[in-house]
């Protein structure tokens, strides 16, 4: 059974389009994340949700909007796609970490987004 799953795995689209990436975790975790990994392999946090509440929102263009319908799902919607949005996007989850010293995150397989 896949712990953290993402769809689609690959996404090729034109500039200016709007697209969504879906993420689901079956681990019962309270916290979910979105990361972006660029061509240089730097992995940067974008958003974090805890029990459907946004707790981390890095300096990300407002064309990116996360949506959490329930604590098992965190979707990423991107409006007006640009060439620079091409990257691999990873979803991750962890147990509720507030006050905890445990830092294990479980990552999904990634979604490779290519904007033409």
């Amino acid at each position: 059974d896949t712990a953290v799953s993402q769809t689609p795995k690959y996404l090729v689209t034109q500039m200016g389009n709007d697209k969504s990436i879906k993420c689901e975790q079956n681990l019962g975790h309270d916290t979910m994340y979105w990361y972006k990994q660029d061509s240089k392999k730097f992995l940067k946090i974008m958003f974090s949700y805890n029990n459907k509440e946004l707790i981390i929102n890095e300096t990300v263009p407002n064309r990116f909007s996360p949506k959490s319908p329930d604590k098992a799902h965190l979707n990423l919607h991107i409006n007006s796609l640009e060439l620079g949005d091409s990257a691999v996007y990873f979803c991750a989850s962890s147990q509720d970490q507030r006050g905890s010293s445990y830092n294990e995150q479980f990552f999904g397989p990634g979604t490779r987004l290519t904007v033409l």
Partner: protein
Amino acid sequence: LAKTTQPISMDSYEGQEVNITCSHNNIATNDYITWYQQFPSQGPRFIIQGYKTKVTNEVASLFIPADRKSSTLSLPRVSLSDTAVYYCLVGMLGTGRRALTFGSGTRLQVQP
């Protein structure tokens, strides 16, 4: 944020022990040190976490000196399947994004 510095790449041969050192000079009192492994086309995978001295699990050991300004991930008897990028993170998830900053990582290449 506690910045981490790792070697960009390392080479090794099968059966050897590999030690990857991470520097984190401005580590805070509450920060933990966490290591992840990432294979090509996959998400990172948790390897080990520690606060001080030594931690060992079935995959690796983590050595942390008393001043905690660095840490060393030790992989015993590596195999070809250990070829991956290894990331050192410093912080604590419960305090926000401090433990969510992945550096550039160390690309380990294991040869036969």
